[in-house]
């Protein structure tokens, strides 16, 4: 098989297209690169979806945690402690075992006049179940970042808003929120990188890969197990992730530039990548 044929056969293997059987012998570098790259689609899917939905949730949580009302603050504090205080690995396991325990036929919700059956089997699939865990997890970590940023919004900004007669929602939307984003953005960039790295845990925890459709690390592990040679498959994953990390830094840097565009050049915050892996 030439390399181009390999690419055609395995480029979308992780989504279930192309060759059904994984390569079994005579593993070439081309097969390594193609299949691991194919698995990377899942990492990007998990990371991008969790980041997008988690961002919205994190904003709500951060505001709730800063709220003076205990009914809002306490649940937010507990949610953040729960997801930041325990390993993501355990969260995956726990979520999977819980989803498996749900009745296969679905849950009946009686509404008086009619009964709705909520299907539950889709939750045990990685693309839904693991995504939910990742969303909640990244929401908790990002909420803590945004909460810190919210608390460091300069007093003067708030007083200026008061002077203009702004209050409530319009003050939040026009003054507080943009500043919160600007202050929290460098730390949020790290969290995003961190989240993409965490997606490699999905198929190593509770969630099984269905029909050998896994992520980049799943295929790398497949090759390393078959060839007893860790010196090829894992560096390929590493290289893919370095590229992915650089792409995230680039994208978030653009947003950071936009958030800081009204500031004089010497007071702008630069993005600094401080790695902190493993949750």
């Amino acid at each position, binding site marked *: 098989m030439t390399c181009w044929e390999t690419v055609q056969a395995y480029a979308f293997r992780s989504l279930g297209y192309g060759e059904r059987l994984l390569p079994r012998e005579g593993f070439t570098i081309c097969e390594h690169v193609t299949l691991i790259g194919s698995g990377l689609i899942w990492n990007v899917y998990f990371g991008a979806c969790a980041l997008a939905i988690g961002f919205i949730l994190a904003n709500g949580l951060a505001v709730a945690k800063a709220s003076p009302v205990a009914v809002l603050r306490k649940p937010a504090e507990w949610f953040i*402690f*729960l997801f930041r205080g*325990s390993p993501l690995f*355990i969260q995956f396991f*726990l979520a999977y*075992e819980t989803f498996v325990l749900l009745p296969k036929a679905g849950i009946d919700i009686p509404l008086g006049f009619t009964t709705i059956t909520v299907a539950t089997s889709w939750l045990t699939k990685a693309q839904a179940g693991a995504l939910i865990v990742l969303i909640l997890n990244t929401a908790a970590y990002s909420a803590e970042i945004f909460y810190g940023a919210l608390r460091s919004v300069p007093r003067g900004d708030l007083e200026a808003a008061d002077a203009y007669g702004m209050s409530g929602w319009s003050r939040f939307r026009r003054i507080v929120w943009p500043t919160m984003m600007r202050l929290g953005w460098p730390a949020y960039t790290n969290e995003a990188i961190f989240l993409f790295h965490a997606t490699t845990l999905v198929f190593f925890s509770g969630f099984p890969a269905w029909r050998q459709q896994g992520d980049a690390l799943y295929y790398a592990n497949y090759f390393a197990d078959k*060839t007893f040679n860790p010196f090829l498959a894992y560096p390929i994953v590493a290289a893919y992730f370095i590229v992915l990390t650089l792409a995230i830094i680039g994208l978030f840097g653009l947003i950071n530039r936009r958030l800081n565009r009204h500031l004089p050049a010497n007071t702008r915050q630069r993005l600094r990548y*401080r790695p902190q892996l*493993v949750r």
Partner: protein
Amino acid sequence: MFAFCEDPSSIDGLTWLACYLTTGKHFDFYWSFITVLTLLAITAPVALAFGFAGAVAARSQFLPLRLLGQGYVAMVRGVPDIVFFLFFVIALDQGIEWLVHQARCPDWTEPIRNGLEFRVCPEAKVPSSRAPQTLHQLYGFGLAVVTFAIVFGAFAANVLYGAMRAVPRAQIETGEAYGMTSGQTFRRILVPQMWVYALPGLSNLWMILIKATPLLFLLGVQDIVYWARELGGTKTSAYAYPHPDWRVWYFLGLLVFYLLMTAVSERVMARLSARLSHGQATLAGETQRKAGR
């Protein structure tokens, strides 16, 4: 364990639970918590030592050493740590066997990497195939400790490197003015003062280390995750204590364990931070001085 546990099928309720939770396998499960704590207790100082060496190397005047140190610090950036965990365990295992092979079987002619196999002479197997099971487990645990130390050492190096640069330059200059050599200023001035700057980063690292311990399971050590899966799975009536799928409850237990660990660590770190800030020229130290403590 208890006398009334002789016949599990005849008891029920709390008695059954007491007997169930004191079976031999459950004691293995409880011991595995000790395994995790041991891993933390060994890894934290070793990783700190690795980190210290890395930070010193990264500051070195000697170019190759500096590149080595900075390369080590940069190594972990941008790559998921789990890749390192999976990689190092096999790589270290094969590396050790290869070295022993070179030493013990110099006249072995067959290739070591033959197609899909990694084959060394039988004398070079580490630990040897005749060794007892416990030795194999200890060896696996040792590999895990080294892997954790290498990966977390790189993080610690990053933190300590920053802390060393945060010590005010004037302090070092004062040392030089007293005629101390660079080694003396390093030992007497830089190292004692850097900890207060390093503590926030190091305490963060400790939290991350706690939360990384379930990865032991991936390295093949029989840790708490292994036993939770083993004990929680459905037990048919062929077993002494049959029960349905209880893995959720076991994992909930693990979750509570980790939350407790995190909460206790947060308290200890806050105390330690207050202690270290005492008399320091930092914002926290200044606040303490004004409060009259």
